[in-house]
């Protein structure tokens, strides 16, 4: 279990997330979402659209925070799709880091349309 969490943290940080444990950072104007899953192999948070979790919440604000329970972390994409077990939301976003573009001179810039700053808060099971 903790190995999965460690892998998630390593890959999420590599993807550009700031990972916190326990307490959510207080940032004015930030969008806050409850992540349904985390994917260890890619360091992604998975957000399902639902009543109370609009699709654009993780895209419109410049800063976004995902709350993720440690026991909701799965190994990889195959495990994620297996965990859905046929319950497919209208929109499932697998988010791996901040909004980014390399369209101008192939140089990386963050925060093009979506957030420039993304956080994950891990909650112990």
């Amino acid at each position, binding site marked *: 279990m903790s190995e999965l969490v460690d892998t998630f943290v390593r*890959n999420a940080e590599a*993807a550009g997330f700031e990972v916190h444990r326990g307490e959510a950072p207080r940032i004015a104007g930030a969008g806050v979402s409850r992540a349904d899953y985390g994917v260890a*192999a*890619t*360091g*992604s948070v998975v957000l399902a*659209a*639902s*009543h*109370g979790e*609009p*699709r*654009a919440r*993780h*895209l*419109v604000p410049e800063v976004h925070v995902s709350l993720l329970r440690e026991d909701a972390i799965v190994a*990889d*994409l*195959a495990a*994620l*799709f*297996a965990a*859905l077990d046929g319950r*497919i*939301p*209208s*929109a*499932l*976003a*697998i*988010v*791996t*880091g*901040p*909004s*980014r*573009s*390399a*369209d*101008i*001179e*192939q*140089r990386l*810039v963050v*925060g*093009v*349309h*979506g*957030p420039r700053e993304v956080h994950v808060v891990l909650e112990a099971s």
Partner: protein
Amino acid sequence: MSFPVLDEHPRKATDAATLRLFRARTAAWASLDDVQALRDRAYEIRMRAIDDLDAHLGQFVTALEAAGGKAHLCATAEEARATVARLCSGASLAAKSKSMLSEEIELNGALAAAGVEVVETDLGEYILQLAGEHPVHIIAPAIEKTKEDVARLLSAVEGVAIEPQLEALAQAARRQLQRVFQQADVGITGANFAVCETGSICLVTNEGNGGLVTSLPRMHIALLGVERLVPTLDDLSVLLQLLARSGTGQTLTTYTRLLTGPRHADEEDGPEELHVVVVDNGRKRIRDSRYKEMLACIRCGACLNVCPIYRQSGGAAYGTVYSGPMGAVLVPLLRGLEREPGLPHASSLCGACTAACPVKIPLHELLLELRRDLVGERIAPRAERFAFTVWSLLWSRPPLYRLSTRFVRFGSRFAALAGPGRVWAAGRALPQPARRRYRDMR
């Protein structure tokens, strides 16, 4: 058809970008436990869907409509354009996320003619739209533009000078496109994959524009090439592992979205209507030919980055929507070999494209096969076919071969006097054959 070398700036930019993308891909492939096994699985998945395309399409349409979406099957580009235009009637602004298929069917012009303003929201595509140009690379569309070019284009929109600095340019584009996301009546996207078992569309973007155009407007229209079907979600997980790694070297594209039907009644945002426009436009004809493996292509762009022709000439030289090795195979198949007889020659047949393809399409073999068809179907010019017939007649008979080599010394002088030999010799010194033949030295 000729493939001139690019001017200095775009050549350097293309060279640097393709080299960077090549290195990123090879590093990302190396990070996988067994990339060859994954490529084999990906090939098997793609061919399974293509071999039984009609059944898979039927399954997808059933699942999509069960989820509340609507499928529109279009045989031709014309039909697809008309369908999208009809769906957009009454709309005044459409926000568009990157779609090569929309370029293929020339959608933007048709919508403009129908009175719908279409704005591209992918940063690279937006820049090209402002410049009135078309993409030159599948995943790096504006590869040849400098930040000074971009600053000029974005400044013209706002009527104020924007500094040619990366951050300032990105912020300006964000500002300019926010209005489009908020006010658009329709969101138009492509589809990287469609999942048959769930009726889902899979859409990947790094900027997040794909998410915004499928969240805020009241209608979402997704353009789907009929071959982009994937049987199951498990199969999708295999292809997603290869798509971003092969395209940009990322483990996964930043925003990977699975869209299944329109918004539910209790949800705060999302489109009320989801329309999937499924486009054939020649694909089923390819499925029924010996070129069907070309339909396995997932549009990652890896073959462009390794191709010596693409890297020297750039995407615009191909004069078509799809460029590089995948374009040189796909475009003649879609449009007809007789309309694109030059493209199969846009290759050195070195095989780098085949080695770079994540779904193992034998690209250089297909190019060779197309060249065979050019001759077999008598599309190649008569003089060219005659020359090769004479050549094969002479060189497949030892006495005539020996005789012909005796005249090489004289022949090479005459070769520079006319036809292609003259063009070739204009800027070069022709090699001089040795005085004595090797066979005479024994």
